[in-house]
């Protein structure tokens, strides 16, 4: 008999009941809550006169709507100028208080983007099932957990029953073997994977990321990769346990202690796919072939290497793709065959649950150090993922590097990743963004998002247009050259 995949192992450890029709009841160990997708769930509980099943399984923090300027944040919730946003954040506070759920409120140092906060607290542990009303919950799969986004009705269902109705996914393995080139990061790996398999390539699958290039990544890098599994259509992305996982978790506030820790680690070591496990699909990518990536269109699969160019819709493989390409180029204000390095930028955003952890900020700061943001850039901002990331970055002097270079240094939150707070793009503005979605209007009505890694974003801010961070790092800044005007 073939061995089990990591996903299969985790699935059977949480299977409460399986119905004849294949639907299963799965036990949920951790639910993370934020202000946007939880109010209607709490409302539903109240209307049906139900109580949460298990309070200690839940952890909440506001992130989507919180303002990120120092001045606004100084006022706490009162600094939220938009009355509708304010009601949402207050509703989360009230619900957590009345039901007795632990919440890191707006100015708690532990507040931040829910997918940064969970792992940082050790609230995400190997062997868990983790859910959140947010599609980037796959982030937590980096710790060998089944983690995925759910809708608000499901949030209510988990609150009320500690279980989720689910169907077992198929298994896909994406193997990235070899050594990444210098300046190539986790973000580039995952963008290259999405470019290869497409935004629906992982639909119905749990994707396990494996191979030597994945094992070489830090936990931060692994979270970046799993974070974007949903952009490849997969609700679940996950990675097996190794020393890197265990070292990261040691001494985290929610992590087990003493002999509990020893017992947990012994079991966690088993949380890897068996060598003879059967995957329904395997995709292999050579790490050496991956260069720094930049998205040019309005879907994360519309991505290419920094040395590449915008495609010509006339050369698209089929009519639907041709239509999507043409519409994307029109929306993005780009010309067919335009060089990626010729795309001029107006704003730069370093942050989001994909790239706002300490390692991301270090990578960006390394590029920004001693340089200046180009005059043509209207706004370059760095938004740490949590209060604790911010504190760490400040202890390392990264905030100084950024502000001296002309970046704004902000308070933690989702910020311009989806522009629910005041941080957004104007119509037609191009933004180099370390977030995960480049959909039309995602960062503001008419805004044009280009997805990149943190070092690439910092380099783009300095140059005013995209540049190859690998040459940039070596000191060949194309600081003064002017790219040909965009279409």
């Amino acid at each position, binding site marked *: 008999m073939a061995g089990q995949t990591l996903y299969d192992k985790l699935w059977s450890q949480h299977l409460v009941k399986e119905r004849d029709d294949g639907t299963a*009841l799965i036990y949920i160990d951790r639910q993370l809550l934020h202000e946007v997708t939880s109010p209607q769930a709490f409302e539903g509980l109240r209307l*049906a006169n139900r109580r949460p099943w298990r309070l200690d399984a839940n952890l909440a923090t506001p992130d989507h709507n919180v303002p990120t300027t120092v001045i606004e944040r100084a006022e706490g919730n009162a600094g939220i100028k938009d009355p509708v946003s304010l009601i949402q954040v207050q509703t989360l506070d009230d619900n957590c208080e009345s039901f007795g759920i632990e919440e890191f409120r707006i100015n708690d140092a532990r507040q931040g983007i829910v997918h940064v906060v969970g792992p940082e607290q050790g609230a995400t542990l190997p062997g868990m099932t983790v859910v959140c009303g947010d599609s980037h919950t796959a982030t937590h799969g980096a710790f060998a957990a089944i983690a995925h986004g759910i809708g608000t009705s499901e949030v209510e269902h988990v609150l009320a029953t500690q279980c989720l109705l689910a169907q077992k996914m198929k298994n896909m393995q994406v193997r990235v073997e070899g050594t990444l080139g210098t300046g190539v990061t986790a973000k580039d790996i995952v963008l290259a994977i999405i470019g290869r398999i497409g935004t629906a390539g992982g639909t119905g699958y749990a994707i396990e990321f494996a191979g030597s290039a994945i094992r070489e990544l830090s936990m931060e890098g692994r979270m970046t990769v799993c974070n974007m599994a949903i952009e490849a259509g997969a609700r679940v992305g996950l990675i097996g346990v190794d020393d890197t996982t265990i070292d990261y978790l040691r001494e985290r506030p929610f992590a087990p202690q003493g002999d509990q820790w020893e017992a947990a680690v012994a079991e966690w070591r088993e949380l890897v796919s068996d060598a003879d496990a059967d995957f329904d699909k395997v995709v292999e990518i050579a790490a050496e072939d991956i260069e720094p990536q930049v998205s040019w269109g309005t879907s994360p699969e519309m991505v290419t290497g920094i040395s590449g160019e915008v495609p010509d819709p006339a050369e698209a493989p089929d009519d639907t793709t041709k239509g999507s390409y043409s519409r994307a180029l029109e929306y993005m204000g780009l010309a067919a065959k335009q060089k990626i390095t010729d795309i001029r930028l107006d704003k730069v955003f370093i942050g989001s649950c994909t790239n706002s952890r300490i390692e991301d900020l270090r990578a960006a700061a390394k590029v920004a150090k001693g340089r200046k943001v180009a005059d043509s850039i209207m706004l370059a901002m760095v938004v740490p993922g949590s209060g604790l990331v911010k504190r760490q970055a400040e202890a390392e002097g990264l905030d100084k590097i950024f502000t001296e270079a002309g970046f704004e240094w902000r308070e933690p939150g989702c910020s311009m990743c989806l522009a629910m707070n005041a941080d957004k793009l104007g119509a037609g503005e191009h933004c180099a963004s370390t977030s995960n979605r480049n959909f039309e209007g995602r960062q503001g009505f008419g805004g044009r998002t280009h997805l990149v890694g943190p070092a690439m974003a910092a380099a783009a801010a300095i140059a005013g247009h995209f540049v190859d961070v690998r040459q940039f790092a070596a000191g060949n800044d194309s600081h003064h050259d002017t790219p040909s005007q965009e279409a």
Partner: protein
Amino acid sequence: MNKFVRQQGLVAPLDRANVDTDLIIPKQFLKSIKRTGFGVNLFDALRYMDEGYPGQDVSTRPLNPDFVLNQPRYEGASVLLTRRNFGCGSSREHAPWALEDFGFRVVIAPSFADIFYNNAFKNGILLVTLEEDVIERLFQEVEANEGYRLDVDLENQRVTTPSGEILEFDVDAFRKHCLLNGLDDIGITLQDEEAIREFEAKHRAARPWLFRETAKAATS
């Protein structure tokens, strides 16, 4: 949840692949703490020429005359015909809430994104998956015939076209049962309360570190 048994509805074609949930309902409307009232902002960026904001009187907003749902021939449509990977992106349940509030009860496409698929069924919307070439043909028929309606029958899992052609579709038995009877998932799950408690006790005994009170209890 609303029951869904059978729907004979006017079809509106949305000729676009990878329609994401940001497009179905833009983020500024997610600030509501209610489940209703999203219909007027369904496909907001495509439907109106200006940028919408929550709580606005939409009657004065300039409409995009090219957008399909603004064309009089599709007024009152309850079946949406669209292209592959519909509902990708964010997990927001506001997307099916908006579709439902607008009046759509059925979406027909070659494929759907996973989270959206779950969310739609939980809100009384039936998603019908048909082959890409069948979808292409339906697009042509809808565009050529004003007042084109489809008869969608969940009980028998078939869609009947005006010419009498029958298209069969798959749907999993549990979702079908819930939709036909308008059943609330939580109530159904709580019938298994005993099984959940039993599982939980075993799980806690085997892996106490997964529970906060017991993660530190045995510290030496």
